[in-house]
């Protein structure tokens, strides 16, 4: 089985995000960048599938600036087999990203695309679904459990939905996107890091894939959310419960 795992370079979720004064982007000085946490879970799942099934190949893909090599090397150190970086200086919307991934699916012919459910920067939660639509493949988003049939042709996915867990099944190829509970990603080991240096990391200029990077959704401005008005300290539990009852009228 060949598994394609798209990953995105995003600011560390522990970082304090602030918007540039002119609203054109976020301040990136001294910001550490990491693999998007949901993408990391997707990679971990792909590695586990490979370990369970033997013979699977895990191909990482990212789209971004050259510096995205860092995250791809980390993914290779975790155990991915090789990596592809589509070079682009522009922020791309989900539809463009999906179109580029669809081109790579045509080239690589994976049985499975395993992606994060959303990137924690733009929070769109669209790319996997759009990709599935473009390919006319079945999809299972928000996966918390992934199980293959004995012949590896079918997959059953448990999904985290409102109010419970839903299970869907389909015959491969398909797209699965991961939720938090699917697994706990591993750390790259020292031998893994050594090995990663020798693994293939292929760079493709965006223009070579023949996708028009014209966005369908255009971001005009970023701004900080309105600040909450300063609250007040209360001295006792009685006072607190009283205020919630009489002032906030919530209890």
């Amino acid at each position, binding site marked *: 089985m060949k598994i394609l795992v798209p990953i995105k370079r995003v600011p560390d979720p522990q970082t304090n995000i602030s918007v540039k004064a002119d609203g054109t982007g976020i301040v990136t000085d001294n910001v550490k960048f990491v693999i998007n946490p949901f993408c990391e879970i997707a990679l971990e799942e792909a590695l586990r599938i490979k370990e369970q099934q033997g013979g699977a190949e895990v191909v990482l893909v990212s789209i971004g600036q050259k510096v995205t090599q860092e995250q791809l090397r980390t993914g290779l150190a975790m155990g991915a087999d090789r990596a592809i970086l589509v070079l682009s200086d522009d922020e791309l919307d989900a539809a463009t990203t999906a179109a580029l991934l669809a081109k790579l699916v045509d080239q690589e012919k994976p049985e499975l695309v395993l992606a994060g459910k959303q990137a924690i920067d733009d*929070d769109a939660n*669209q790319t996997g679904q759009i990709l599935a639509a473009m390919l006319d493949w079945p999809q299972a*988003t928000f996966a918390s459990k992934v199980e293959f049939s004995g012949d590896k042709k079918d997959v059953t996915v448990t999904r985290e*939905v409102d109010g419970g*867990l839903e299970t869907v099944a389909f015959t491969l190829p398909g797209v699965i996107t991961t939720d938090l509970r699917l697994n706990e990603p591993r750390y790259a080991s020292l031998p893994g890091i050594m090995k990663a240096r020798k693994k293939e990391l292929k760079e493709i200029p965006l223009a070579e894939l023949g996708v028009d990077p014209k966005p*369908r959704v255009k971001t005009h401005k970023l701004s900080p*959310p309105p600040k909450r008005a300063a609250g007040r300290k209360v001295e006792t*539990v009685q006072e607190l*419960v009283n205020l919630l009852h009489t002032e906030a009228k919530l209890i």
Partner: protein
Amino acid sequence: MAKVLVYIEHAHGKLLKSSLVAVSAGLAASKKNGGDVAALVLGAGVDAIASEVAGYGVKQVLSVDDARLKDYVADVYAKAVAVVAKAQGATTVVAAATAQGKDFLPRAAQLLDAGMASDVTAFNEDGTITRPTYAGNVLATVTVEAPVSVVSVRTTAYEPAQKAGAAAGVEKVALPPEVTSKMRFVSFAETKSDRPALGDASIVVSGGRGLKSGENFTTYLEPLVDVLGAAMGASRAAVDAGFVPNDLQVGQTGKVVAPQLYIAVGISGAIQHLAGMKDSKVIVAVNKDPDAPIYSVADYGLVADLFKAVPEMTDEVQKLKAS
């Protein structure tokens, strides 16, 4: 003519409140951009839902009643929405950003060659759309640069639509034979809990590392949660320490919630946690550290030992409810 199509989600034969939020958003979109609002109901045996939603201020209800829509699966639902949107000449398609909306809507958007804005919180006067990014730490102002806009609406962004005037007519729409699925619905296991779900609870009580153990969540926090009829949440620190399961996590990598009342107990207020709850209407923090960052977003802060304060709070609320 421009038309706004609002997807109506329902479960167990009931119209969801989030669908009425979507109706409100659809009405707001039509006010800005023009066009009538039509509600779209999909399923098998959905006459009751269709006539119910007809009373909420929409111009028309479109109902697709078909055995292929009995169980929700993303590919068929996306196709059905796209088929109807095309036939109706809809220029805007709206659904609530629930698990289901998030699942099929981007797929439907692609079938319509539309641009999609996710988790939208406002349709602005100037025709732009506001949506939170970076888990609410940044607001993005966007426009859709495609003939058709698809929008998922954050379920806390608008008040649910109210019953209004005469009921709209219900029109049945047939699903073409080529709408088929490559997916199979297997089962749905409802989470067995008497507590409301984190995502739609009006009160959320969350515990952090200050609780010190999973047993303390049960002993101290749960009685308060239950007396308030609240949902229980937790900080990532509490989840990472193994006190409670991951599905309770509120934060940037967990669930983003915006209840009427959020009570943070023993939570210091790491950035990634604040990102998940700071849109709550009223925030209460109980922490023994007076300098904890959680107080920067709290409307009411109580500096106290939670092991004393929380049982006391449970008692006080109980007294209040009994009186």
